[in-house]
């Protein structure tokens, strides 16, 4: 079983089978570059992911493991296709997987899935956050995401005006 060592930003190392790691677009390219650059084909590749901390990386790997037999979704699908897949991919396992997480973790997972190019995980996490946005008022969104309005002067009013124009049509 060929392994690869994936190291998180805070130094925790995960030993993962290459077959599993290759389900992430990013890790796949990294492993291939490593193979090309190293003379010893037996050497164990080591990949450092500087943007993802151990806890998040572990969740990503766990998700990959659960979905290791799913077909890989092409990352460059156009948007309409992408939306369809999100509906498709949501299984009971995924729901249980995401249930205990708070918004901050989910956000980090989105970033990680985006960085590691794991389309399926990106889909389900984005869907989750999306459900917190659809149908809410601006103030509700701000509270939910702990954001403050940083518009200057009448900028917000201007945007409202522009929006009204879009809706009228």
């Amino acid at each position: 079983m060929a392994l690869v060592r994936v190291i998180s930003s805070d130094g925790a190392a995960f030993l993962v089978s290459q077959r599993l790691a290759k389900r992430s677009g990013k890790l796949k390219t990294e492993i291939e570059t490593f193979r090309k650059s190293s003379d010893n084909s037996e050497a164990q590749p080591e990949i450092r992911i500087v943007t993802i901390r151990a806890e998040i990386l572990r969740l990503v790997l766990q998700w990959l493991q659960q979905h290791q037999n799913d077909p890989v979704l092409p990352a460059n699908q156009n948007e309409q296709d992408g939306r369809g897949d999100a509906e498709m991919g949501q299984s009971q396992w995924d729901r249980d997987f995401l249930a205990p997480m708070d918004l901050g973790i989910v956000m980090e997972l989105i970033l990680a899935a985006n960085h590691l190019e794991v389309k399926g995980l990106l889909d389900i996490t984005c869907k989750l956050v999306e459900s917190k946005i659809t149908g809410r008022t601006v103030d509700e969104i701000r509270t939910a995401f702990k954001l403050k309005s940083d518009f200057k002067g009448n900028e917000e009013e201007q945007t409202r005006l522009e929006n009204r124009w879009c809706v009228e049509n």
Partner: protein
Amino acid sequence: MAHQSFKNRNYCLSSESELEETIDEDEMSLGVRKRSSFPASRTHDSSYLETFSIHGSASESSGVTTDAHFDSHPLLNSLVAYNVMTYLPRKDLLRCRLVCTAWDTEACRLLRKVLLLEFQDICHISKFKRLMDDNLVRKPNREVPFAKIYLRSTFRLGHDIAQDFFKTHGHFIKQLQIAKVGCDCGANFFQKLLFYQTTNITSLDLQIISSPIRLSPVSEYPKYLRIKTPKRLSSKWRLPNLKQLHLRHQLFLERPRFIDDLLEAVINLEVLKTDEASPLFCQNVFVPRVLSSRNRWNKLKRLLVGDMLYFTNAQMIKFAEMKFHLEFLPLNFNILVPSLECVDVKNLKVLLVSLQDHLKKLELFNHRPDLPVDLRTFPHMKKLESLKVTNIKFPFVSLQELPNLKLLSVVHEDTSMKNSIFSLKIPPHPVLNSVGLCPMVALNLSHLRDWMAYWDLNAKTYVNELANAFPSLRTLSINGNDSVLKNIYEKMPMLETLTIHGPITDEGITGISLELCQRMHSDQDYGLMDSDDLDQLRFIGDLKKIRKITIVSMGNRSLLTEVSVFLGFVCCADLITLDIGNRELVELWKAEVERLRGSSKTS
């Protein structure tokens, strides 16, 4: 912070047994239930992740880290926001603009793709211009969501206000659709508009013009013609950003010079498309126009007339010489129009070879099943993901040359079924063994229509070979009978979509012998079978992930009864679409599923 406690520690794997143990522990600690439908054997032998014995659940440690990560990361905000917003409908996107400036920027980026502004008349555009003036002119760098503009038939392009708008704000426009424009404006103006004011335009849709741009009075025509001469084609006259061009096909016939000029100007074209037109148009007008263009579009990815393309033999050769980088080629040939010549396989191959490095999607459609087209071998195409061939002898051995193929459809419309049934001749079997492991996800093999006699004898080996050759198969469409179906339950438990053409009976769906099924049907008693015995049988519910089932009987009449519904389809938990050619049964299935759901909720 919680995550720092395991800093600089390595988690390594020491033995197989320990590995499984730690994984189990881990899953328990997270409170994650293993999906019951997930075959246990797969989880164990197909290997695997590492050992990680990090303790503590996700929710515990997250509480500590959230705030710090959230606010201190502006990148996190906008990147996450963009990713999430791709899933939002337009209405919510507009609302997101109001949350904060970072979100506004991201929402605008997306809105530019999805928002189409419709202008009905001058009044609209003058209002819109005022809005733009208030905002944009003062802050030219601000992102705005307005990039796509659709001018309705009531819109008069020649009006001063409209001209003024396009002169001052034309550079905002990325995509322009025009319907029935130009009742009062000449081609000269139209050209100026395109060439000077809207140089950022990436997509131009003139497909829906129903009365073409009226040319200026004849006296001005020579002026317009002069633009065509090479001397006059300075870089100014180019549309370097235009990537998509959709044209109504009559424009080619009615305004050939306009089209010529347009095709000259679009140097970086990626998509050239006209609406539905005849194959003759394709052969005599469209393809020659493309081939004679001085632009050697090396970014061209799609070239379409309607949703097809037709070449003569000579054109195929010439097209191959042009070395386009097409990604999608929907080629039709042997079309039933008397004056069109038949395809020469040799030329077809030359064409395919010229595109072998770029094609991602290929469709070959032979319109005359009586004229056999045999490809024998297939060129190596490393990027090809989707291949559909109709009425063509497909060399299965060539699947080796297509390492990235995910979708294959081989269809024969030929009804030679009769012959083979009467002669009982079994056709040679495609050599699937030689294919090796394919990443194939979807497979449509309706060419096996005439193998009726073959199924009974060889169903097992046939399905076995398919399952071995395409381990990642999720969508399958084949012909078969009950015994093929039963083998599918065993060999392909991961299927999500199944279409099967053939005489499928209750026995195939439920696994219960046909005789007993018929008794259940006539007695309306579905408990005739012992439940322990039922558990032993392979049936449709073994496909744990199945979402869509289509069953087409060879005749038009469905052979299934409600027995299949009660003892078969209702057991497929994820099934969404059922099409078995019998509406009453489908309604029954829906009602039954609703009923079961209701009762499980109350209990």
